[in-house]
């Protein structure tokens, strides 16, 4: 599904540069659910953004679903993002003047799907996250948990192969966090590959594998027994 070899990334800071990723090697198979952990500033988001083609690595090899991701034009990157990837962010990143349904339908719009079809499909995904009754509400009229569920529905709408989540529960209280994790686990049960950045140990243990970053390299990578979110609610 995903193959990363000797990935390096540094950011220019004034005259010098900050070496953030110093040779990452990571391989993720179809159906895995991986938590990326590490202290603040260790490069978790950087790694996830490169995987999400929102950012580019300086060197190294990145193969996604058999495709070498290198020197992509903006247009190509947009196409791949739309086809392969679904994003869930800590701050939801919904478009504030669009209602829940329209937000969920947006990636389908960029796929060129017909209006009627994409509204139907968007509604289907909203139903999955239990928000049919809220379909016509704006993000500001929804709670944090509801907004994150809209974001999950949106990430799922385009039927991506890989779901990337950067601290999806970071802005939520514990109960809501577990609710969201329950959804994500459910998606994984259905076969979606999931990569998730998190700070919280309990959230990380709801995944099936934990990758720990320190000083720009992976210092620990271990399979774990998944804790189900359901029984914690």
């Amino acid at each position, binding site marked *: 599904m995903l193959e990363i070899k000797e990935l390096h990334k540094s950011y220019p800071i004034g005259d010098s540069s900050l070496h953030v990723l110093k040779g990452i090697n990571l391989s993720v198979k179809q159906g895995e659910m991986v938590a990326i952990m590490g202290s603040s500033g260790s490069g978790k988001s950087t790694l996830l953004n490169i995987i999400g083609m929102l950012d580019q690595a300086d060197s190294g090899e990145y193969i996604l679903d058999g495709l070498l991701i290198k020197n992509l034009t903006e*247009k190509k990157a947009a196409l791949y*993002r739309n086809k392969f990837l679904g994003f869930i962010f800590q701050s939801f*990143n919904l478009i504030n*003047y669009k209602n829940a349904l329209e937000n969920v339908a*947006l*990636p389908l*719009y*960029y796929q060129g799907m017909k209006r009627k079809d994409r509204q139907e499909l968007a509604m289907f995904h909203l139903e999955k996250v239990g928000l049919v009754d809220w379909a016509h509400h704006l993000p500001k009229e929804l709670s944090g948990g509801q907004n994150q569920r809209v974001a999950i529905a949106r990430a799922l709408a385009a039927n991506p192969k890989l779901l990337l989540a950067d601290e999806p529960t970071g802005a939520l209280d514990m109960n809501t966090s577990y609710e969201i994790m329950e959804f994500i686990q459910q998606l994984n049960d259905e076969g979606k590959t999931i990569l998730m950045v998190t700070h919280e140990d309990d959230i990380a243990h709801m995944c099936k594998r934990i990758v720990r970053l320190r000083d720009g390299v992976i210092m620990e990578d271990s399979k774990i027994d998944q804790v189900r979110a359901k029984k914690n609610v």
Partner: protein
Amino acid sequence: MFDLDIWREIFQSINKNKTRAILTGFTVVFAIMLFTILFGIANGLENTFKKLFLRTADNAITLYTGTTSKPYRGLQIGRRIFLNNEDLDFIKSEFGSQIEYISGTLTRNYNLRNAKKKGDFTVMGVGPDYQYSEKAEIIDGRFINLKDYNNKDKILVIGRLVEDDLFERESAVSKYIDLEGVQYKVVGVFSDNGGDSQERMVYAPTTTIQKLYTGNKKLDRIVITYNPKLTVDQALVLVDKITLKLKNKYNIAPNDQRALRTGNRILTEKKRLDNISSSLGILIPIIGFGTLIAGILGISNIMIFIVKERTKEIGIRKALGASPKSIVLIILLESIVITTFTGYIGLLIGVGALQAIGSSLERYFITDPGVNLSIVFSATIVLIFAGTIAGFLPAKKASKIKPIIALRNG
């Protein structure tokens, strides 16, 4: 991709961000309103000038004489040249159909009196054709005719204000006026849209003035109205030919500008109108262009601000698979839609303002200010163009925003 959906996106974006749209729109409304009003006022000025200069027949040519300023054919300079009655026939026989009306004039000031009143007036000896050259309109009686002219009859045609002065409320026709001891019969009264001084004129047959006061056949001026079918250029050629013929006849050097002069209204007026229009023609586009540029800059600025405000949205759209092209398109189309729509509002306000001004500014030389359809049409094109230019750079910039940067600034 270029279908109803993109328009839905644009109208939703405008609709849900009204403050933003109003902000942009206001600049455009103002620019276009100013643009329209300026154009309208310029048209009003032009209308005034046209009206001012086209009062007398615009195809009239006047010939004057003076003293020679160049020696020619052995003759010395300083010779006084006079035109006379024979020149009328000479010109008519030489130029025939190119000439519509011709008449010689003699102007003198005399004291006119009747039983009740008296006053000093300008008396002008003219031929029967003169009525048409001056565009004098007979309101009572008739103008001087050929019989009066040939018989050297003692008759007068007086201006409306002369009648008012000497006859008060009564009709002057068939009454008599004493001119330096000679009794003249009034045969007609005229009005003239050339102003008060024209309506204070008194016309008599040239031949009568010559017989009774000057004792010769000399004329002050010859007024010719050329065939209206001639173009301005052909008329100018005609003027040149007439002066050359006369110069030859009177032994005047062809390049002598003083001995024989032409006051031809077409030329001077056309020149004057051209000057005024061309200075307006230069000024107005400059002002108009300036307004538009200011408008475009204003919109550009606001669009840049809008792009900043929408950075995060653009980042989200890109993360969801929006191509750079589609980003350019939504920003650009939004700019064009707002400019075109609010531009129209500006145009309507401007046209409304011009209509409200109407005739109230006539004393500032503005007559019937207004804009015509072709200006409205070109303004629309300019608007769309302006919207495109104003939106393009910010849109281009927006499309280059890296999604990661856009999302981080959340």
